[in-house]
């Protein structure tokens, strides 16, 4: 275990080469210095000194290495390419798996307890574009439609980032509330509505019916909410027969999905070269602002450290499926290269490689701070 769990335990022997990286990575990610304090007597494995121990990051969840492979293959113009139906299939399995897991959790707890949290998370989703929009519009001098589009992307959520964060916490034996996927579904919606209002105002020409169709019947939300409802109806015994595909294979599917996302992200790095350093800076700073808001809200809602880390990650992430699809239809003058360049070219890789462990450390700090109050 390179990262302390929410229970502060360090069970079992530390595998060779792992702890040294965890300590280094923790410092690198300006994270919790308690790694060094909690480590087993500061012992540094000889593997730390090898290039493998130094550079291949053995404590990193292997799915992240698939993402890096995708980025490297994409940047080096390899002919590696996953066809679109494979991408669709992989994201479908991830969305359904996340939905099913949340639905099963909901089937085992009173819905009344979740409703206030859902409302608070929904409000956060609507607030984030309002924070981002003035920065993009006034400071970044982006056209109104583009500023609204980018702001909406950052108010919404990336399911891929959520999946990586959930896998990261599981990898490090950190537990979290099982109903967290409900928040993923909730966060998809408000940012799109607020973003379109920012772009269009309340003018008559806005096609609200079309927007409702895009928002509620988009592939991502249908699969996520569909999975939630199936999990809710079927319960733990009901989903047991489909567990091998959706739960046992989850990490493998996530690895392939991230390989593909690496290839796609590499393709969007070029957009940034064309659209300047402002978006690069925004794509790096906005997740940190979002993460802080998410961690504060999660803590205020009484979530566990794992839950706070996940809500923080969700708030830090930027959409690349639901929001671009909705904006393409409702606000077509917004340039998708700008918003996808920032969300896929900068924020997604940042969150996957550095953000998730950082937000976990943030959750630990916020949790400790709240307990001290």
């Amino acid at each position, binding site marked *: 275990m390179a990262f302390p769990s929410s229970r502060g335990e360090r069970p079992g022997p530390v595998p060779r080469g792992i702890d040294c990286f965890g300590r280094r990575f923790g410092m690198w990610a300006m994270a919790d210095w308690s790694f060094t304090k909690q480590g087993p007597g500061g012992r540094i494995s000889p593997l730390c000194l090898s290039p493998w121990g130094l550079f291949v990051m053995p404590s990193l969840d292997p799915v992240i290495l698939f993402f890096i492979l995708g980025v490297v293959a994409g940047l080096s113009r390899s002919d590696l*390419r*996953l*066809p*679109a139906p494979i*991408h*669709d299939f992989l994201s479908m399995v991830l969305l359904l798996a996340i939905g099913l897991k949340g639905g099963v959790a909901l089937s085992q707890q009173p819905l009344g307890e979740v409703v206030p949290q859902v409302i608070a998370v929904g409000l956060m989703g609507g607030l984030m574009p309002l924070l981002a929009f003035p920065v993009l519009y006034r400071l970044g001098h982006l056209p109104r439609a583009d500023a609204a589009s980018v702001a909406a992307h950052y108010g919404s959520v990336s399911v891929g980032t959520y999946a990586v964060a959930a896998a990261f916490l599981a990898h490090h034996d950190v537990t979290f509330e099982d109903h967290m996927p409900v928040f993923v579904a909730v966060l998809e919606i408000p940012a799109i509505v607020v973003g379109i209002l920012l772009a269009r105002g309340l003018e008559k020409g806005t096609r609200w019916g079309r927007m409702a169709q895009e928002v509620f019947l988009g592939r991502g939300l249908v699969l996520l909410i569909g999975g939630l409802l199936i999990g809710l109806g079927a319960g733990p015994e009901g989903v047991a027969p489909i567990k091998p595909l959706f739960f046992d294979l989850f990490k493998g599917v996530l690895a392939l999905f991230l390989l*593909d996302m690496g*290839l*796609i992200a590499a*393709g969007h790095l070029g957009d940034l070269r064309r659209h300047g350093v402002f978006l690069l800076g925004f794509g790096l700073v906005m997740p940190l602002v979002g993460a802080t808001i998410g961690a504060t809200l999660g803590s205020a809602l009484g979530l566990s450290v794992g839950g706070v880390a996940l809500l923080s990650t969700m708030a830090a992430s930027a959409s690349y*499926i639901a929001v*671009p*699809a909705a904006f*393409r*239809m409702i606000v*077509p*003058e917004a340039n*998708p*290269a700008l918003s*996808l360049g920032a969300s896929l070219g900068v924020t997604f890789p940042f969150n996957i490689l550095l953000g998730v462990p950082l937000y976990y450390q943030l959750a630990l700090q916020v949790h400790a701070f709240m307990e001290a109050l």
Partner: protein
Amino acid sequence: MTTHSFHRRRLVTIITEATLEGAILADIDALGPSGYTVTEARGKGSRGIQSGSWGLASNLRIEIVCDETLAPKIAATVHQKYASNYGMVIYVSDVEVLRADRY
């Protein structure tokens, strides 16, 4: 021996972003052609490379065989509504078809 006679019709081809599929097909349908064919496509144009690797980077090629009066209507309607904001190529060509009663 059966003789096959060919008849001249117009073929409207539209290559555009895959996200437009639902909206554009509804508009085409409303103009009354007997049908259309949709295939996935990828390529390069003024808006860069559409690699076809995922939904937003995918193109469609929509083909409609119709008579001479309908073809310009379809082309003009689609062009007017979508061309300014979306990647789009529209062309009309002559084709020779069998079973002319279908188009």
